Each structure stands twice: as C-alpha cells, then as structure tokens.
C-alpha cells in the first residue's frame, strides 16, 4: 500500500500551527486553549487527541513524555513538536492555498 501524500485537513493544519506557536511548551490542553484564544475554534478533546495520534502516525508530530506531576494525579505530560515532515506538509499546504488565492483579491473585495 503506497502512502498517500494528500493535503492536511483543516484541523490538522490548525493543530500543527498551534504547536509551532507554542514552541517547546505544547501539550494537549494548551494546544486546545491556543486554538480557542487565537482563532476562536472550539475543538472537543476527543477530536483533538485522535488528531494528534493521527498526525504522529503520519510522522508529522513527535512527542516526548515529561516527568510525573502531582497536579495531574502523578501522570506525565506529552510534549509535542512538529517534525521536519510536518513543517514540509504545512509549507506545501500554504503554497497550494496561495496559488489558488492568486488573482482573486479583486473578486473578494467587491
């Protein structure tokens, strides 16, 4: 089975960008609040975690498990970072959109 090199979904793009914005502090909860505060996008936790798993399977995300924390019932944090493949996919998405948007400014301003 050849791996499909499709485009990123909207939520996937948003998640990856949010992780990049958060630099080395990105983990589940603050990715969620980043999305909410920056673009007012409310994501259910279930959807977010499944998306993170999928991105990791696709090789676009890396995660490192932190140390246990008493505030979290002794459970660790899963810190997220975007892999070079992820950055590549984002760039590709962006340039695709840019190309599609080209020359449409006049239409949109009406």
């Amino acid at each position: 089975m050849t791996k499909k090199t499709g485009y990123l979904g909207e939520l996937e793009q948003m998640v990856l960008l949010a992780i990049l914005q958060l630099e080395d502090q990105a983990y589940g909860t603050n990715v969620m609040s980043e999305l909410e505060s920056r673009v007012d996008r409310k994501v259910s936790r279930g959807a977010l975690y499944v998306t993170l798993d999928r991105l990791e399977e696709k090789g676009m995300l890396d995660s490192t498990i932190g140390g246990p924390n008493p505030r979290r019932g002794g459970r660790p944090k899963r810190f997220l970072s975007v892999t070079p493949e992820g950055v590549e996919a984002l760039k590709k998405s962006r340039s695709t959109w840019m190309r599609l948007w080209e020359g449409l400014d006049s239409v949109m301003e009406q």
Partner: protein
Amino acid sequence: MSQTQAPIPPKLAQALLRWCLPPGAASDCVVGDLQECFCALAESEDYTGRSARRANRWYWTQAFSISTRYLVRRIARGFRFSRARSAFSNEAPEYPSRGNSMTDLLKDLRFAGRLFVRNPGFTAASVLVLAIGIGAITVMFSLLNSVVLQPLPYENPSQLVWMWGSSETRPRNTISAENYWDYRDESDAFESLAAILTFSPRVILTGDDEPERILSTQVSFNFFETLGAAPQIGRTFLLDEEQAGASNVVVISDGFWQRRFGADRGIVGSPITLNGLPYEVVGVLPSDFDFRQGVELWFPLQRETGFTTGRGNNNFSIFGRLNESATIDQAQAQLDLIAERLEITYPETNDGWGVTLQSMHEVLVGGARASLMLMLGLVALVLIIACANVASLSLARAMARTTEVAVRFSLGAARSRVVRQLLTESVLVALAGGLGGLAFAYLGLGALKTWGPANLPRLDTVVVDATVLGFTFVVSLAASLLFGVIPALRSTRFSLAETLKVGGTRGSSQGKSGFRNALVVTQVALSLVLMAASGLLLRSYLELQAVDPGFETERLVRAEMQLPSWRYQAPEEIENAWSQLSERLRAMPGVLSVGAVDQVPIRSGGTWNTIYPVERPPTNAAERARYGAQRRFASPSYFETLGIPILMGRPFESTDRVGSPPVLVLSATMAERWFPEQNPLGKELFVWSQSWQVVGVASDIREFGLDREYSPVFYMASNQVTPDRMQFLIRTAGDPLELVADLRRTIWEFDGAIPISGLETMDARITGSLAQPRFRMMLVGLFAGMAVVLASTGLYGVLAFFVRQRVHELGIRIALGASPFSVIGVVLRRGMALVGVGIGIGLAGAFAGGRVMQSLLFDVAPTDILTYVVVSVTLAGVSLLACVVPARRAMRVDPQEVLRVE
C-alpha cells in the same frame, strides 16, 4: 475544598477512560491533561459545592467525548483488521496488543445474534419483560426530569430566590407592597427584587368584539427584567409607572395579541379599553413566557391603589435575582436587619414579621418532587422484578446449555471468556429491551399528557430528551448486569466430568434452584410492596371521595359574572343589579334555586381578613396574624341553594342591604373559635374598621378541598357590601349543562356588557380537585398490576422447571400408587412456600417503608392492617393460580414414559 489536597476526579469516569483509551504512556498523558484542567476548574471559585459539582460534570462530559472517539476508532479499525488482515500486516499495530478484545467482542456479538435467531421465544420473552420495566421507569424519569430536574425556563434560574414573609405562626406568607418597596430600596444583595400580585383579577375588555373578561395581574416595573424576559415588541414598564397617578399602561401576552388583534404589530402604542378606561399597550410578551398560567394582561403595580396601600395588606409574592457576589445567606442576613428596622418603625403591622428566602426552583416545583421521587422508587421495584424474571429465564436457559459450556471448557476456553460471552448476550437483550422500553415510554407519555392531571406543573413540557435517553441506556446496562452476572457466573461453575457424563439434562441443579427460589421470593416480596402501596392509595382515594363536602353537589352549576364598573358604581346600583339578575335566573324554567358567593367552595381562592370580638382586640402583630379568618360575600339564598344548614339564628335576608346595620353569619368552626359554649348570636365582631353583629351560624363546608380541614369562615351579606364580581350557583331540576345556553341569554338580556366565565358543574369541580390523587392511585395501581403479572409468570416458570426436573421422581411416585392429589400437593406446597416467604418479607418491607407514603395518604395509616391483609390474600390467590398449571402437568406425568427413558 481544602487547599492542601487536590480534588479527585470521578473514579467511574476515570475507569471509563482507562477502558476506552489504548494502553500506553500517551493515554496516561490524556488522563493527566484532564485531571489538571479538572483541578483548575474545581478550585476556580470560592463557593466550593457548586464548582466541585460543575467540575465533576465537566469531567464526565470530557470523558464521554474522548471515550466515544476512541471507541469509534477502535471499532472501525477492528472491522478493517478482521476484513483485510493482509493489507494491514505491513503496518505495525497502532497500540501494543491487549488481547484481541475487539475481535472477540465481534465474535461474541455474532454468536449471540445467531443464538437469538435460533431461540426466538426466550429472546422475545426477555426483551418484552425488560421493555415493560424499562418503559415504565423511563416514563417516570422523563416526568421527573422535565418537571423537577430541568432548570426553570428563566435566565440564570439558580440566582432566583423567593422571599416569604414569615412569622412564628405563618412561615410562608405573602408580603405587602409597602414592605416590598422598603426591602427593594434598602437591600443591595439583589440585582433586582420583583413583586407580583398573588391573584389574577379579571378585567373587562370592551371594543369592537363582544365584551370579554380577561385575567390580569400587577407586577413591579422590574418583574420581567428580573426573570430575564424581554418583550417581543415594545417595552416593559418604567420605574415612573409605579408612581401614583401615572398614565395607564399595559403589557399583553402573545396569546392575547394573536387572538384579539391578529398579531398586529401596530398595537403597541395604541389604546385598548379595559374596565371602561383607555390603556396604552406598551409591549407584547414572547410566546414562551408563562409565569402565571392564563394571565394575559400585565399592569404595573401603582402606589396608593387598593392593592398596594397598607402595610398589613399582604397582597404580593416577592422574588429576586441575587447579585453575582451575594449568597442566599448573605442576602438573608441583610434582609433580617431591614426587617428588624421595619418592626421598630411600624410595630402595628410588622411586629413579629420577618422574611425568609428560598430558592425559586424549590418553591415552584418542590411540591411535585416528593411524590414523583416516590413514584420513581416504586417503578424501580417493577424494573427489579422484571430483571429477576429475566434472570430466572436466563438461568433456565443456561442450564439447558450446560453441555455446550462444558464442551467449550474441555476445548480449553477460559472461564472468563465464557462468562464474557454470556454477558454479551445479556447486554444485547437488555439493549433491545431498552429500545422497546423507549417505544413504550413514548406511548406512555402520550397517554400521560392526555389523561394526566392538568395541575401537575410543567406536564406539557415533558419530552424524551438526551438526558432521558442517557438514563434509559444506563438503566438498560445496569439491568443487564443485574440479571446477567449471577446466572453467567453460576452456569459456568460446575464439575466438568460430571456434566459431560450425565449428558447435561439433569446435572447439578441443586445449587441453582436455591438461587432461582431466591429470585421468585424477591419478585413476590417486591410485588407485595407495590400492591400495598397501591392498596393504600386506593383506600385513601375512597376515603377522600366519601368525605362530605358539607353541601349538596348534584345538579349545581356555577357561572362567574362581573358588573362593568363604568355602568354600575353606586352601591345601590350594584345591589339592584345582582338582585334583579338573581330573580331573572330564578324565574328560568328548570331552575330550582339561585345563590351567589364571591368564592366557590372546593379549591376556592381565599381572602383572609383579621377579625376579632370588639372587646378583645389583638395586643400585638403576632396576635393580629393569628386572628385571621376566611371572608366570603354571600347572597341571602346562598345557604339554601347549596343546602348548607343554618345551625343557629338566620341566614341573610333581603333586609340586610346597603345602609342597614352590618351583620355577619359565622361558620361553626369560626363560632366555636371565638364563642365556645356561648351563644354567638348578637355578639359583635370587629373587621373592616367597624363592628358587625352576628345573626347566624352556618354549618361548616370544605372551602379548600375534600382533603382539607374546615377553616374558620365569616360571611358578609353581598347586598350590604356590594362586590362587583360574584359567582352564581344555580340548582337545576334536570341536567344543569342543558341550561347553559338559556343562562347566557337571560344574563345578556339583562345587560349585554356582563361577561360570563367559569361555567362548570359542582360535580366536575370536585372531580377536578381529586385529579392528582386519582392519577397517583391509577399509576401505582398500574405498576402493581405489572408487578403481579411479572411475578406470577416468574413463579410459573420456576414451578414448570421444577416439575420438569423432578419428572422421574414424580413418575415413580405415581407408579408406586401416589394419588394425583398428593402429586399436586408436592408442587403446590413447593410453590406456595416460596410465595409465603415472599409475602412475609414483602410485608415487613412495606411496613418499614410505609412511612414515606404518609404525605400522600388521606385518613389512612401507612400501616393500615386491612389493606395489608387484603393485599396479601390477593397476591396469594393469584400465585396459587400460577401454581395450578404446572401442578396439573405434574399430575399427568405418565410413569411408563418416564421409566422407559431410564
């Protein structure tokens, strides 16, 4: 929550998560994320009870959301995995393996499905029994959910509190407008404090159409704002409109706007004529605004009018919206201070009076809660019986499958694996039962809305919503555990060699019959509890129906009338109008007698006045409050028309009229209260700032309903005090309803501007007043009926099984010459022993738990011996019938056939 210890998320939700998430560190992190947010949420606010609960709810929602996501994913992958293993094999499995639980589950489901198809009788019976139980509990829960659990339909309902006037003797009283204004001005614990007139006077609308009497009420300017209701057009009231002499304005309901003005938006700003005066319509309320049923016109309460003057005139219900920062206790403390100040400033009226706050939800629906909770409890018993029933069925079936299970074991299946298979079947049956239950509930709710009592609050809003669906789902799962776990465990615990040797038809039944017997005993015991509850309610209802209302109710029709105030103003004019109307009605063919009163007995509203003997005035406000009695205006022929005996003196006469010496007739209770062992005739009582002479004593009647005690009542002569609104009571020779058209014509011939309303017969009024107890009685009777049917089929099943198991023994007995009756005896003894134990336990339970029913019973003790005896005998009789069929089968056992097999 203490600062040192972190709050703990709900354990069950955590377990759910752990079960649904794939194992591994990543999932641990997910749970950690949740817990972190949970702690933050739980500690975010200072009043901890509320925030802890909110955090718990939040955690559950999140856990559900995440679990379903992962479950869906696992199921999707599971299917893909089993369908296309090869296509998948070059990828690593996503998660470390935890057995093949998903594929196992699919296998179990397929197997269970096949079994059901092969054995439709068992499946259908189980599903049906469960559907009945689940359906019944779903109906009751939807009622409870909509009527009690849902928040009130106002903005932020949790901030709304009710404010009662309270004294030592009257803890929940209404409040006067003057006191209300003081509380409103001096307290800052409320965002706003609103008032509404406790009753709904009718006003007469005249215009192009025929005159109409419309329910109205008066509210403070901030009433709508306090509830968070905005008008759909126009505005509500302004503070200035509370001032004396402000212009006449009115806010109308959506229904009135549609009906009378065809939803014309131009109505706002235009005048309508009410009681002969022009009023400007300033706003139209939204269609869902329903604070007080039936009220269509809302006026601002105005200073210095009849209802608002006088600190002792407690005409208003007060409620308020607490400030965000204020708690109910803080508000209460502040109000206590104000009340103290008012007591000092106005000792005559306020001495001994304070105020008490209570949550508005509690005030509006609290009364229904206890009775609905009890119903839910009773219906839960029905469900438990249904589960016990299905448990016996599954046990019988598991017995038949002993060989299958043994073969599986011998082929190396783990016990846990087999138990899981059996449980899967139970869950499937329960879910099918749940679906059936929902269908039953849907039908049941329709029936309930048609036949339920009209005065159950918010009945029309009852729906099967997500909460109810969730409830049904959880109940179904719980039921499956209840009836599935023990049979599954029991049927997988036996000696392998033994079973395989005998062939499984008669092996190892001894231990299990104990459990089956216990199931029957449970069903019988719970049925007895339900029957006892139903019996008590029935007796209580019969007692209630047998109560003498104190007057004759047959062929009595009521019509409410109001004289248009712009035509009849002088007392003589009013007196004249009422007398003439009476005479005309009396002259109608078929009319025997006509009386009039301002409040019709049974469920009447009441007007409470302070009244006392002239020589014994109250010395303080608390005493003054105790001196209240119900006041009625009655026409001369009122007592005669209703058939209320005059015990002493005389009724009112035509000479008791405007300008003649003021007279009173007292009810027997009232006379006894003030003049025990004295002759009350000729005594003077003080009320309405003057003294009145007692001329008669009338027998007591049930003013407020058959289940209420007599209250002290004093009657004033309607011709003397000339109220502009009266309720006529007309005794007819034939069916009163046939006279209604003539009645209207006669009245309108007299004056076409007199609106007539409230036409009903007294019998219908009494039946209506019994609607709630009747509804409860029928509902619990229905539950008890279901319980008995289920329990007796359960008993039947167990005995039939018993006969099949002992076919050998019975055959041998018969072959050795036992008489058919002794064989029947064996079976009956067996069955009735179980029933006896069940009834015994049930009686003990019903006796112990009967107290919770106390508040619903009238004149019947919850431990009423007669009820218990009748119920026990009935249950024993029905059980005996259920035993007879298997016993007859035992009698017909053919010894030859049995022994040939051997």
